[in-house]
């Protein structure tokens, strides 16, 4: 749709006070990806370390534009001082990149697309509405969104993990533990996060939770 919005009207709290603006999905932009992140405080990773090769990633070339504040980018180990007005273009999808904010409110726009291919939203970006419901504490809607996403991508470990989080909040212990187990079986590195993740407070005391997070592969013995 054609329309306008200020970035402050598109942001919602994402994690630890930082905010995410779902620009592409808000306007239904169809030909490139575009989102923005806002750091809660100095020292925040406004762009978390990642590359564009993961199963959920779009293999995009990406432009980062520091629209306010000040950051330090690290790309393939090179540190780049990036005050407001800086463009950092990462053409290599294999390049590891992250950005740390120097000031609260530092905002970075990201624009991405895959060279030589028509744009389609990445699997990762498709969970934006679900994350928004999470940030509002609407776990019922968040769970519904993840169930819909999993209908199209049943092997996606992050979707399974986040569905488990929502179900934990909703008191659906059995489903939460089953989905958490499945997520960790598919992606064992999710285990470390689950141990500390407050979203699992609702199932943490269950012996099966300890089995899933303590002994990957023998999960399910507590039931």
């Amino acid at each position: 749709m054609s329309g306008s919005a200020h970035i402050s009207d598109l942001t919602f709290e994402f994690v630890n006070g930082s905010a995410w603006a779902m620009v592409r999905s808000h306007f239904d932009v169809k030909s490139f990806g575009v989102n923005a992140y806002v750091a809660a405080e100095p020292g925040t990773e406004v762009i978390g370390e990642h590359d564009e090769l993961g199963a959920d990633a779009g293999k995009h070339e990406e432009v980062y534009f520091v629209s306010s504040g000040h950051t330090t980018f690290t790309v393939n180990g090179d540190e780049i001082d990036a005050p407001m007005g800086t463009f950092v273009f990462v053409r290599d999808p294999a390049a590891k990149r992250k950005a740390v904010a120097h000031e609260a409110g530092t905002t970075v726009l990201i624009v991405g697309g895959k060279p030589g291919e028509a744009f389609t939203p990445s699997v990762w970006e498709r969970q934006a509405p679900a994350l928004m419901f999470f940030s509002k504490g609407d776990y019922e809607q968040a769970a519904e969104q993840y169930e819909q996403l999993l209908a199209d991508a049943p092997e996606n470990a992050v979707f399974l993990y986040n569905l488990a989080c929502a179900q934990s909040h909703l008191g659906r212990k059995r489903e939460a533990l089953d989905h958490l187990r499945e997520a960790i079986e598919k992606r064992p590195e999710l285990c470390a996060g689950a141990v500390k993740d407050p979203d699992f407070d609702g199932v943490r005391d269950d012996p099966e939770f300890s089995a899933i997070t303590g002994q990957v592969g023998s999960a399910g013995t507590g039931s």
Partner: protein
Amino acid sequence: MSEKAYEVAHLDELDRFPVDDEGLLWRPVRRRLGITAFGMNAYTAEKGDERVVEEHQEKDGHDELYFVASGRATFVLGEEEIDAPAGTFVHAEPGTKRGAVATEPNTTVIAIGAKPGVPHEVSKWEEIFVAFGHYRKGDEAAAREHLTKFVAENDGEWQGHYNLACLEALTKNREGAIAELKRAIELDPQAKEYAANDEDFDWLRDNPEFPA
């Protein structure tokens, strides 16, 4: 040699090519960074109260998103008028009339665009804009060198010859202008229609050799 994994540029370091005689500056971002998956440019109005996005409709089907990076502008989007301070996004679907006038000095708008459903193709028009940018900055030699190179690389396309004809006409090179315009018309007769209404050629119209 393999391409570098990343490029960095600050807005202040981007080229400043005049687009018109009213002060609108084109600041090529895609071209500077080597982006290939979508188009990206910045436009700056230094004085304020000047056009910062030309009024147009993107008839070639581009989806465009504008971001006000600094200053403030009034956008027209379809029939709507939008006050857009720094931090505002304006999205225009293909075919929607859009344009913007800066309302503060040093207003910069970043434009991002691509055509939905197909791989992005870098617009060859960028190189023509660069050539005329050099001309408007008073560097005729750079303009001619840039456009001549572009024509040599795209000899079968009328637009290059037509624009070189314009440049030759603007710099009062009668023979060059007529030769290039003839070549453009040979390649595509619509060049004749454009030339008939193009004021760049006004001083040449009475010449018996003028082909339009």
